[in-house]
């Protein structure tokens, strides 16, 4: 018995809400009660196999109306909705299958892949881990972990799982090799990655993703001719090109400063799309090209449209209330009076120590890391998600019923006095597993943007670690945030105004931490790094406690590949163009100047 459309669940499953997203677990029939429905489910499966989807759908809806927890019917209905392109319903049904049948490897695998595809990495990791728990000997579970952890900025863990697949299958599958190559490229291990791409392409020469990844590797490694050759080869294989190839070509031409040609590529890309328009990434790339060409109004229009489209397609928006709640609670917790009663973690003398490179996304943290990691005693750790992880793990590790930061109150308990040491060791152990440390290194950098949100926690865990805060004209950050996509900071960069609001929240928090704590904190202006490079680097290294090394002046020779969005800039010599770039966009930035004005003044900048 099917309900009228108006009464159906909003997810699009075809079920009534009470049998779908508003399900009441207490009303679910037991397996025994629903046993008589098994033949109907079998008929649905058979119908689906025979291509009779309508019959299969009707049968599934009937079964699920009576027993919404019949996993077999859920599975068939999910396949039908997937085939219909109803992503929301398909995802909802997959989640329900995994909920009712946690050991269902196939559904877990599929759900994890679906979450990966839509960029919900945190959740994807959870299901990928479950897949390994369900089937530790199944190569696909490890492949899933490899895929997802590579994208979740934990490439060393991803590499482990890819290599586990190689071990379990005892074959060198070309696709797997290409995936592993992409992983190694993200670790900056370019030669190893290149060798794997060569091996993969030799075995299977015409795989788009493989060739695209290889082209990206060469482009990132500044081998523009090699990248060009690969894209040429792709155009030979697929004369009609395709959006991904055209975008890769546009990016490459942009890096080669052939802006007009790059724009032509994007125009061709738009012509090929169904609605004649570019997608969010392509619009952002177009904006960047127009910016390079000095067409600032057109550039900003492209950026703004890219943001709008990204919001529309992904549904991502700034989590205003969540951000407000966290920053308010952090501000209330980290006060001088309370801090005087909290212990500090001791300092481990036996392992390299972190240097925290702090800053809002797009403020120059990558440049700072590249500079520091040119020093022989400092290695780059990149964006380590570990402080964020610790904030989530803290309640469990400190056995607290409270969340972070209130869970730190457990440190007053006699049995948790060493709690911070345990959290510190978690961080350091994970760093060791990431294999970023090299012999002779005394320090590693952690440049996770917005780690300054947790400055208080960091100072409790690593009271002697240098905190290098890269600051930059807030309006330049706004321009840069508009011309890039990033999800840090509760997706604040989904719009100009929310970027500004989050900036203010975080800087207010930094102000509070600095007022209430004795921090080993040094603010470094991005602009000083551009105009007064040597003095600035000398000052930073002295603050770290390391002697000056001239290699740091030539960070662009640092062979390390900086994986984040800044890589194209940091592989060039310092240039002045990125300083006070906001002036070209002033009229577009007017809506956020009132939000930022006080902070612009604090920082000693002006708007002119």
């Amino acid at each position, binding site marked *: 018995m099917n309900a009228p459309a108006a009464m159906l669940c909003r997810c699009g499953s075809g079920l009534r809400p009470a049998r779908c997203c508003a399900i009441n677990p207490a009303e679910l029939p037991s397996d025994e009660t629903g046993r008589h429905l098994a033949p109907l489910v079998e008929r649905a499966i058979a119908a689906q196999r025979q291509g009779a989807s309508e019959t299969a759908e009707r049968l599934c809806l009937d079964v699920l109306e009576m027993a919404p927890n019949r996993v077999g019917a859920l599975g068939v209905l999910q396949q039908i909705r997937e085939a219909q392109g109803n992503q929301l319903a398909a995802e909802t049904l997959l989640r329900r299958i995994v909920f009712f049948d946690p050991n269902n490897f196939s559904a877990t695998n599929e759900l994890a892949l679906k979450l990966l595809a839509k960029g919900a990495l945190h959740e994807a990791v959870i299901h990928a881990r479950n897949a390994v728990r369900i089937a530790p000997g199944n190569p696909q579970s490890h492949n899933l972990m490899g895929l997802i952890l590579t994208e979740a900025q934990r490439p060393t863990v991803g590499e482990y799982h890819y290599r586990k697949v190689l071990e379990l299958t005892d074959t060198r599958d070309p696709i797997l090799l290409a995936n592993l190559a992409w992983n190694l490229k993200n670790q900056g291990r370019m030669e190893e990655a290149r060798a794997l791409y060569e091996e993969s392409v030799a075995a299977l020469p015409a795989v788009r993703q493989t060739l695209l990844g290889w082209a990206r590797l060469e482009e990132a490694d500044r081998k523009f001719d090699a990248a060009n050759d690969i894209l040429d080869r792709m155009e030979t294989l697929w004369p009609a090109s395709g959006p991904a190839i055209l975008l890769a070509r546009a990016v490459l031409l942009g890096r080669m400063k052939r802006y007009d040609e790059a724009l032509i590529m994007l125009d061709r890309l738009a012509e090929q799309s169904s609605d004649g328009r570019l997608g969010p990434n392509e619009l952002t790339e177009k904006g960047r090209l127009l910016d390079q060409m000095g067409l600032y109004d057109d550039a900003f229009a492209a950026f703004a449209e890219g943001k709008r489209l990204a919001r529309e397609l992904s549904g991502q928006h700034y989590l205003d209330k969540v951000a407000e709640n966290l920053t308010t609670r952090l501000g209330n917790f980290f006060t*001088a009076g309370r*801090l*005087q009663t909290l212990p500090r973690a001791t*300092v481990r003398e036996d392992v390299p120590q972190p240097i925290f490179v702090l800053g809002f996304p797009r403020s120059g943290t990558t440049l700072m890391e590249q500079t520091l990691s040119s020093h022989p005693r400092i290695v780059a750790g990149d964006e380590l998600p570990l402080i964020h992880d610790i904030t989530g793990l803290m309640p469990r590790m400190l056995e607290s019923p409270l969340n972070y930061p209130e869970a730190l109150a457990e440190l007053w308990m006699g049995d948790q006095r060493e709690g911070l040491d345990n959290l510190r060791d978690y961080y350091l152990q994970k760093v060791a597993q990431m294999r970023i440390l090299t012999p002779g290194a005394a320090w590693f950098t952690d440049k996770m943007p917005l780690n300054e949100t947790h400055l208080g926690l960091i100072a409790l865990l690593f*009271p*002697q670690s240098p905190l290098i805060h890269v*600051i930059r004209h807030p309006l330049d950050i706004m321009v840069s945030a508009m011309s890039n996509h990033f999800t840090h900071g509760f997706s604040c960069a989904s719009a100009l105004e929310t970027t500004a609001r989050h900036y203010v929240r975080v800087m207010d928090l*930094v*102000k*509070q*931490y*600095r*007022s*209430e*704590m*004795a*921090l*080993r*904190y*040094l*603010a470094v*202006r991005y602009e*000083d790094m551009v105009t007064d490079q040597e*003095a600035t680097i000398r*000052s930073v290294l*002295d*603050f*770290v*406690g390391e002697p000056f090394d001239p290699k740091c002046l030539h960070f662009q020779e640092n062979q390390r590949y900086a994986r984040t969005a800044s890589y194209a800039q940091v592989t060039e010599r310092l240039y002045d163009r990125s300083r006070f770039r906001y002036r070209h966009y002033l009229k577009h930035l007017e809506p956020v100047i009132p939000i930022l004005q006080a902070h612009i003044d*604090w*920082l*000693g900048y002006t708007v002119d």
Partner: protein
Amino acid sequence: MTSPRDPHYAAAAPRLIPPSRAVPQRLGDVRVPVPLVELFTIAAGFERAGKLEEADRLFAHILAVAPNQADSLHLSGVVAFRLGRQDEAVAKVEKAIQHGIDIALYLRNLCEIYRTLNRLDDAVATGRRAAQLAPNDPLCLHNLAVLYYERLEIDESIACADAALRIDPDLASAHLSRAEGLLIQGNLAEGWEEYEWAFRIPSVPKMMPPTNRPQWRGRPFDDATLLLVADQGFGDVIQFSRYIPWVLERCPNVVLGCSSEMVPILRQFLPSSRIFYDWQNCPPFQAFCRLSGLPRLHGTHLDSIPAPIPYLHADPARAAAMAQRLNALIPGTRKRIGIVWAGRPTHNNDNRRSARLSDFAPLADLPDIALISLQKGPSAAQAGLYFGRAPLINVGAEIADYDDTMALLHCLDLVVTVDTSVAHLAAALGKPVWVLLARSPDWRWLMNRDDTPWYPTMRLFRQTVSRQWSAVMQNVADALKRDAFG
């Protein structure tokens, strides 16, 4: 020092001229059902009782009806001044003078408002007019004495105080003005004597419960117990604690009353058992003496100031722990410069003596230094707004008491501070300390010199323009580059 020299700016008894006589009013404008005279009396009562918000509201009603009513304008201006609305205060009192009848009072108060706003030339002109209109009003003259001190025209200041005292020889605040003028000129002997009047000013809080015991006169006092009272601000206590050994030579049985914060300082001279900070615990005594009265009893002249530097010492264990902490926070080769940019905000001279952290910008641009904040109190929050090139380590956030402060000072290469207790403490510890002084500084810093006989390791940097720190800070930065670290 808690200066009791505030000029009298509040109104005398209100003398409202009925609006019908004083100012032409259109009856049709009257919207308040209570007669204005009564409203004024109530509002003036609120002002006297310190209920400024209530007074403000009532005056707003009155002035809406009678916008040119002089007494209301004047007193409303005084209320605005006390509420921190300085520009409005000036406008109202100036308007009252335009429409007033008995204007000496208004001028006297306007003189003080101008002085507070650093409009010193306007203040002099206004104050002189007030004195001409009311030649027998000693308060007008006293206001002028205070004003001339601020202009660093000390002879004129003393002359005005003398003139006020000729009219009212018991006007304690004029004696204090005279004392400060004499002291800053280096005439310590006469200055100390006049300074004793400070404690007769009615508005000065009593330093101790009433007693029938006599004040100590400085003579040996072998068998009896002498009570020393650590009066005035923390800086004064640190400065004058140097006299305690001199007292002990004459009076072995000393007990000392002080605020609890001062115990870490004073127990370096006396066992803790002889120090109390709650009058309920005050033991019996036969005579008493204020710490700030000791220079007079000692007969201190400029060339006989006892300066056994260092006369205070950091606790070695605390100093070692602090050194370790600082080494962890600032491991490089930078020189460590402690800074304090503001004093206690309730100090009546605070708007002149305190700076802002942003004023330290010339120091922040120097290479090879680290700034260590010793700042406490509400101004410490400015540390969060600092983004200078030199790192600023806010150790002040971890300082709990003067023991911590002494330990921290012990670890520094130099202290640069406005005129606060930290200046005295660093100097008493024998540390190099550079003090940033207002144009008209406290009397103890004397005039026209960059050193002080009170502390040999201290260097003074004086404002040349009142309330402007930029030149002072630039001088400090230049001196740091030139002299400090060779």
